[in-house]
């Protein structure tokens, strides 16, 4: 049973000013509408994805979503090779305003529906549950809840309870992992995907693998609304939470422990204590007995010796004098 739900109701964290920042640390490519691409070969700082709540009206939440890249990039208009391309420091920043339905997660951009987004998801998921991560209008990306666990997250600095979702589908291809906060549903590790259709002459060059080891060809890659509209030219970028002002930590109230388990866990200590006590008792008793026996024997000899001495003291003294 969710302990925290007694304190914070789901979605209570959705307030103006709530934000989360995520990072990615490898080079990547972005694409402009005119097909010019920026290949960020060197990053001067991690790539940042940030979203913040700007407004909340009823069930609709307006989010400011920004992608920020600072690095050295090859600027590649169509057909230009990397040797001919301009190569210089570039800052790429793109901001979008998503209007997201709090409960269905369906989003729109400038009034146009773009599908289900993953900035948050339903809290209290259970392993095995089927899960629609995001849904571009035609094809949803469906995953499964694979685990629920507590994790001491380095960015949060506290223990958080999370659940993981894994999506693997061959057509359109998706191989993506997501992590959400179990109590709030806030995404902790989002995967951004952009759609792409493999050109006919390249079919066979792109492949994936099922978990049982079977390899298959990929002809289409799935996209989702965030990565697609932010201009990424990568089919897969996984971000990691680096900062948030939303309280996603585990409630400090410890969960009550079962009584039986409480008793049984002390059993080994009780066994050791009993054993040590018994050994000590036996040793003390044995020593005491020995002491009594030794003492009584000594007394017997003392008395006997004194009597003998008194009885024959003349003989003793003569013996010494004669000598």
């Amino acid at each position, binding site marked *: 049973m969710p302990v925290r739900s007694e304190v914070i109701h789901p979605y209570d964290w959705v307030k103006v000013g709530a934000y989360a920042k995520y990072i990615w640390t490898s080079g990547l490519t972005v694409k402009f509408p005119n097909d010019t691409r920026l290949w960020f070969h060197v990053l001067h700082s991690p790539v940042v994805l940030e979203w913040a709540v700007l407004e909340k009206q009823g069930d609709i939440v307006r989010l400011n979503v920004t992608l920020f890249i600072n690095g050295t990039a090859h600027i590649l208009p169509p057909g230009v090779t990397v040797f001919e391309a301009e190569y210089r420091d570039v800052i790429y920043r793109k901001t979008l305003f998503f209007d997201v339905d709090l409960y269905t997660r369906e989003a729109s951009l400038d009034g146009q529906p773009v599908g289900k987004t993953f900035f948050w998801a339903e809290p209290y998921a259970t392993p095995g549950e089927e899960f629609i991560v995001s849904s571009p209008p035609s094809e949803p990306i469906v995953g499964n809840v694979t685990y629920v666990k507590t994790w001491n997250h380095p960015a949060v600095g506290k223990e958080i309870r999370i659940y*993981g979702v894994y999506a693997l589908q061959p057509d359109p291809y998706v191989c993506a992992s997501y992590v959400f906060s179990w109590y709030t549903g806030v995404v902790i590790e989002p995967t951004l995907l952009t759609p792409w259709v493999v050109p006919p002459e390249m079919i066979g060059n792109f492949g994936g693998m099922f978990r049982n080891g079977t390899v298959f060809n990929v002809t289409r890659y799935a996209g989702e609304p965030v990565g697609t509209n932010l201009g990424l030219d990568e089919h897969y970028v996984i971000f990691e939470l680096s900062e948030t002002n939303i309280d996603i930590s585990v409630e400090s109230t410890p969960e009550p422990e079962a009584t039986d388990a409480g008793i049984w866990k002390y059993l080994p200590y009780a066994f050791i204590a009993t054993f040590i006590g018994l050994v000590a008792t036996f040793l003390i008793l044995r020593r005491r007995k020995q002491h009594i026996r030794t003492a009584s024997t000594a007394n017997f000899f003392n008395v006997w010796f004194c009597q003998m001495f008194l009885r024959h003291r003349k003989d003793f003294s003569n013996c010494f004098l004669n000598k």
Partner: protein
Amino acid sequence: MKKDVLSVGTALAFTLMFFASFISAVMALTDWYDDYSPDHTAYAYVAGAYVYYPPPLGYYDQAHEGSITEGNVIRYAFTRFRGFDNTHIEVYRHTFNLANYTSIHKLYSYDDIWFIETYTDSGNGTIPQSAVTVEIGPPGIQ
């Protein structure tokens, strides 16, 4: 006269064949790079052999390897092998799931590959900690 021309032609062909094979063997270049993730749970390796016929200068044989060195994959683990042409258009990409303590090694022979990348993520720790990217490209690019 006809026989002379034939002899000269044959000699020229043999000379060309010899020098072609000689240049190919001598000038065949290889490049490679490997690395571990910061927490040493993921390993990535990429290698390529290319022949210096200027131009083009591309990796005609590509070797990739991705492995994980831990046995506690809770979330996921995979390795991804990619190759790009000289306009940085992706020519191939193969993604393989990894189980505990496993590795995947593949050799490819795609033509005109200028940039090769292996990305491996053990999927156990946080992403920058458990993931590693290695890449090689021709001189001037990487």
